[in-house]
């Protein structure tokens, strides 16, 4: 019997994001008054990261009279464009097919500002009458109403170590200094949350399900120069640059503020895949730079995205627990939408919980499946998630196959798609074969390691990417961005939440993608075989976790991270 202090409540929740917002909002309106506590790892409920443009069907169902002007940075979607970005830098790794396409575009003078505006936005991508907002401000808006209602307690700055598992049942959660026991544990801690991953380890995944596709989403929030008169609600989706595999977005908020970002996916088989450097090249693409030049960085952030969608769905409920949101496989990778889906899964669970409480039935697996899971299976989240299940498989065969596969899946409602299987990451020397001699790659790696830095900047510049001309306002080193725009803070007194568990695997690792992918430069080469970790720079993107080919990184819940309410 543990001698740790114990708190007994009715419902304990892990992670405050859109899904938990949906859950708690619905539950707080039920007229029931269970004792509910939600623990959030970050230092404030507003410190989430996502560039959110959404159809907001679920959110509007919860707030039928929602006025976007109540939420800073929110507005209605006004215009949407899909852009194919050419490669003005001449450094992007394009396939022969793409190069031919680029030449053809140049020959018929189809491009403007090195980009082609597609004349047609596929229906599955459109966010007609949707909303564009900052997830941080949306969380703040929802959370402040919930806290003000007094119906629930939301405790930020409280990392949850893991679930309390007793046999096949979850009996609550472990905090660093106490246990919280509850009849129901609601897990909404995102794609790399410690509690969700512990449940996956204990209960496994349904047959055929696998969280094998990921992406790092990195974004900047930028004050646009005064000359720019883009209408709030303008949305650009882009592909083709800085690398063909990297998708991008440009959203215009009210008051001349833009969210600009990229997704670096797991199928982009580049071992030096730093999202920040690619984001710097992305914003300088001529099509976007004509709006962004002279702008000022307000904020910056990064997060992992669970790109497997429904095919990465874990078990949604068990005895004493249920999962909602992105970590439950709700993200739709075809429509590029996750916030509204996450919100809706939260409301579905709350409706199920209320039904069970009113009937006086316990939170068993069977009862939760009959209430929550049944609702979810009958909803648009499920229907659209199924359509999207195989939509991106083609990207494992190449970008053109991937785009064709997406179009095929979208147009045929998921009946047809192009298949493909993930391939292992190539060694760095192989990736740069034909561009940088292998011995020079190794020399650059050695020199950078000796300086305690990743090799991506040096390798990218050697491979033809132009140097970043820092202006101190929008273009700046990642170290500056951590302070100016990233706003990273870590309270003292906590252990490292990233640990390297297999030094032999680190010794054998050539690419050290954990160092290169690290969004905050918190992981550096270190002095021995094992990389060094500085928790004061970690933004909790979790990219190190899924980029380690040996699975030798332990990524736990911890305090601190980003301090921006605008991401």
């Amino acid at each position, binding site marked *: 019997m543990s001698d740790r202090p114990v708190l007994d409540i009715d419902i304990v929740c892990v992670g405050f994001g859109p899904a938990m917002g949906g859950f708690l909002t619905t539950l707080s309106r039920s007229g029931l008054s269970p004792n509910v506590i939600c623990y959030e790892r970050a230092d404030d409920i507003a410190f989430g990261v996502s560039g959110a443009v959404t159809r907001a069907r679920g959110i509007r169902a919860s707030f039928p009279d929602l006025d976007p002007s109540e939420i800073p940075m929110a507005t209605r979607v006004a215009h949407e464009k899909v852009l194919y970005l050419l490669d003005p830098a001449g450094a992007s790794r394009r396939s022969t097919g793409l190069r031919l396409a680029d030449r053809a575009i140049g020959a018929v003078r189809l491009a403007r500002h090195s980009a082609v505006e597609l004349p047609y936005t596929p229906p599955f991508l459109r966010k007609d009458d949707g909303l564009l907002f900052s997830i941080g401000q949306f969380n*703040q808006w929802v959370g402040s109403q919930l806290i003000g209602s007094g119906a629930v307690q939301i405790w930020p700055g409280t990392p949850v170590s893991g679930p309390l598992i007793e046999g096949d049942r979850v009996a609550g959660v472990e905090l660093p*200094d106490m246990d919280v026991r509850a009849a129901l544990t609601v897990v909404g801690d995102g794609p790399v949350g410690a509690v969700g991953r512990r449940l996956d380890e204990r209960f496994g995944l349904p047959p055929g399900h696998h969280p094998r596709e990921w992406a790092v989403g990195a974004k900047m929030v930028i004050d646009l120069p005064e000359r720019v008169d883009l209408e709030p609600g303008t949305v650009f989706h882009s592909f083709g640059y800085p690398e063909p595999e990297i998708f991008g977005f440009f959203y215009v908020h009210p008051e001349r503020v833009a969210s600009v970002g990229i997704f670096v996916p797991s199928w982009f088989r580049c071992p030096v895949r730093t999202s920040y450097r690619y984001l710097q090249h992305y914003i300088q693409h001529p099509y976007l730079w004509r709006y962004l030049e002279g702008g000022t960085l307000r904020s910056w952030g990064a997060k992992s995205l669970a790109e497997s969608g429904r095919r990465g769905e874990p078990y949604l409920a068990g005895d004493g627990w249920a999962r909602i949101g992105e970590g439950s496989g709700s993200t739709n990778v075809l429509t590029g939408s996750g916030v509204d889906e996450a919100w809706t899964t939260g409301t579905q669970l709350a409706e199920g919980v209320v039904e069970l409480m009113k009937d006086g039935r316990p939170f068993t697996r069977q009862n939760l499946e009959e209430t929550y899971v049944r609702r979810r299976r009958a909803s648009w989240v499920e229907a659209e998630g199924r359509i999207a299940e195989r939509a991106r498989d083609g990207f494992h065969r190449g970008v053109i196959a991937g785009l064709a596969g997406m179009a095929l899946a979208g147009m045929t409602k998921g009946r047809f798609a192009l298949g493909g299987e993930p391939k292992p990451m190539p060694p760095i020397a192989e990736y740069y074969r034909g561009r940088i001699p292998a011995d020079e790659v190794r020399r650059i790696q050695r020199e950078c390691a000796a300086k305690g830095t990743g090799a991506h900047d040096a390798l990218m510049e050697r491979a033809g990417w132009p140097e970043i001309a820092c202006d101190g306002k929008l273009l700046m*080193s990642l170290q500056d961005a951590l302070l100016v725009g990233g706003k990273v803070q870590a309270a003292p007194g906590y252990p490292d939440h990233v640990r390297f568990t297999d030094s032999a695997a680190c010794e054998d690792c050539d690419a050290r993608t954990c160092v290169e992918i690290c969004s905050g430069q918190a992981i550096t080469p270190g002095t021995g075989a094992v990389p060094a970790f500085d928790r004061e720079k970690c933004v909790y993107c979790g990219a190190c976790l899924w980029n380690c080919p040996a699975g030798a990184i332990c990524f736990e819940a911890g305090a601190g991270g980003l*301090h921006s309410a*605008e991401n």
Partner: protein
Amino acid sequence: MSYHIVVCGGIVPDPLQTLEPVMGPAGPSLKNESMLPAVLDPWAAHALFEAANLARNVAGSKVWLVSLGPKAKLQQVMMTVAQKAPFELVPIDGPAGAFTDPVGVSGALAAAIETIAGLDRQRLLVFGGWESATRGAGATMQMVGERLGIVDQFQGVDSLSPRDDGSFEILERIEGGRHQVSVCAGPPALVGWATGSLAEPRNNPQVGMANMRTIMPALQKARAANLQGSPPQFLSVTLPRQQRSTKVVKDLSTDEIARQIAAWINGD
């Protein structure tokens, strides 16, 4: 001797946010102030941590936190602050921005302290920040003390050490990076803390839950602030101009840090 320690600590927008002053019909404010994440004023937070440490080390002592801010925002901030140290909250519902003057704020704080039930003035230590992240005049705490009739006041304090005879030794910052050492015969006294020497405590959910038993009822009964005196007139508001040069290094000696800063200022 045990102490009754009253900490005055307002809430301020998280300094890491993008803060934009705007002029509205009711005077200056911060853009989207109600939606900015807030924190306990960092100067006052040091005072709270020192108060909690003193109370832990001197049996029978007790800590109150008197905090002025919009009630809803106070409630949100307390979900974090309450995990840091045991205290009872005395909330005052009022503005938290930078645009109130110390006269009104000190009046509201002193009035709230006067209403604390069971407060023993012979054991009273009033703590607060020497400065404030929003009210940087360094005058508020001094005026709180004057309104309460506390004549022993210490500002820029880094250390308070109780002695066996009931007196305590205080280190106040003076120029040249040195401290002035004073001995105070005992309470009542007012202490405006500099940074002290304590690290921010880890969040402790147990402490938070215990605090919430009194914090939530107190918030429900929070009185509106009566900010006395004529409000100041602001002709314009701007952010300080910044010139930034960032370098992230660790384990440098203070001498070397000072040398580098001086070199940067001199443009070397």
